[in-house]
């Protein structure tokens, strides 16, 4: 949860800079707050910093107050030490998009027309985002630690090969390392093939470790639990409460102390693409991507800063036809972004003994 002593206002302008709309927005601060929390955890701070996180605006250097270039979410531990996540204006896109949709409905913006926006912060002492429990209720955070224990990051790196996401190699260097066994990737491919033209998915389970040689955290995926009780089509996949129940039961049955690490789903692009053989190679559907709906699933279920999403999609081959490719996405600066991971081909040494 987050507290702030500001109101946030979004202003929308058309391409010529003519003001179209100004409205109060209620940004969703959870992703920024969870990113700050993970930063605190990586610095070996308390797992549950004191609630709530504090949100402050970052002012635009030229125009100054009240215009923002972004915002800062900070969490403090009992000693007042702070860890923070800074977000830029793209963080507010979802709220701005809602306003733009209304403008299109009112006929003040054409569908598909480019627009610009700015975000401003106005002091408001009422602390809008800090909810109070109803009268007569007692609510206390009892979240347990997600860190399993200590292991050597080096010994994981020794049995793994990095799978780079082209768009994010540099940015990924600041992310926590994620290890995914080759057998999980092979299972993902088999399940995708079996589902043919339909999307399919599942939940990634495993462990969050702290490196013995540093304070760094890393995520070890141990298994992919195929999703049951889903509703799937060629272009969508619905996870139901029964899906999650079955996963929780699987974790209980395995009884290995594993936690939910993220989720997996497929993009059967070869069935979406209606191009002829030649233009198929350039089909925009034959690229890895994470849709707005995918972000919504991640935001709703996989809110922790270390949670990841694996997508197995179809990519056109140079010689024609399609091949499968895996891409990993995760939280960075409060947004879901493409990131790299390590494919593990061996067994971790402690398990070999």
């Amino acid at each position: 949860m987050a507290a702030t002593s500001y109101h946030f206002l979004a202003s929308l302008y058309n391409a010529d800079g003519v003001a179209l709309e100004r409205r109060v927005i209620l940004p969703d601060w959870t992703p920024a707050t969870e990113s700050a929390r993970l930063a605190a955890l990586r610095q070996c701070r308390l797992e549950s910093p004191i609630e709530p996180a504090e949100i402050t605006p970052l002012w635009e250097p030229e125009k100054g107050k009240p215009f923002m270039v972004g915002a800062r979410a900070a969490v403090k531990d009992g000693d007042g030490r702070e860890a923070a996540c800074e977000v830029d204006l793209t963080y507010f896109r979802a709220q701005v998009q809602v306003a733009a949709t209304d403008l299109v409905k009112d006929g003040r913006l054409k569908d598909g027309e480019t627009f610009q926006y700015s975000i401003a912060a106005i002091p408001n002492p009422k602390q809008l985002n800090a909810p109070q429990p109803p009268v007569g209720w007692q609510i206390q955070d009892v979240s347990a630690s997600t860190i399993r224990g200590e292991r050597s990051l080096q010994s994981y790196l020794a049995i793994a090969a990095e799978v780079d996401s082209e768009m994010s190699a540099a940015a990924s260097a600041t992310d926590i390392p994620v290890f995914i066994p080759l057998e999980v990737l092979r299972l993902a491919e088999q399940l995708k093939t079996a589902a043919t033209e339909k999307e399919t998915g599942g939940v990634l389970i495993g462990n969050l470790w702290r490196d013995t040689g540093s304070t760094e955290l890393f995520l070890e995926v141990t298994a992919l639990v195929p999703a049951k009780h889903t509703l799937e089509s060629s272009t969508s996949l619905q996870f139901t409460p029964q899906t999650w129940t079955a996963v929780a039961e699987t974790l209980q049955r395995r009884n290995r102390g594993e936690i939910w690490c993220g989720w997996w789903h497929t993009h059967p692009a070869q069935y979406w693409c209606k191009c002829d053989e030649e233009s198929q190679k350039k089909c925009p559907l034959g690229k890895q991507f994470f849709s707005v709906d995918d972000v919504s699933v991640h935001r709703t279920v996989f809110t922790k800063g270390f949670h990841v999403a694996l997508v197995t999609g179809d990519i056109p081959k140079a010689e024609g036809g399609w091949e499968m490719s895996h891409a990993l996405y995760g939280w960075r600066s409060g947004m879901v972004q493409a990131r790299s991971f390590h494919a593990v081909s061996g067994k971790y040494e402690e398990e070999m003994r």
Partner: protein
Amino acid sequence: MSVETSPASQVIGPFTVTDVTGQKSQQISIPSDTTVNEVCKNLLGYLNQPAHDSDGRPITYGVRSENEGRFLGGNERIGDALQPNDTLRLMPTVEAGRGSRG
């Protein structure tokens, strides 16, 4: 004419309420006539769970009692349906999709 007032409801608990992953948990003690819907509505923020998706559509949550091994109806009263020390898991229906792409 006399009007009978309903007796002030007792506070019962504790109950643990968690998100899907079980990684965010809140312990609550609440008036016994609180409904399952009210628990869900008031706890979402504390569990970092959104009430709406990015398009502003409400997200529906199933509430499952671990001790009872069943999903609870939204209008069930906690005092009638549950014994203290139960764990409730809030589980949303969510949809991944290609969206407007292509």
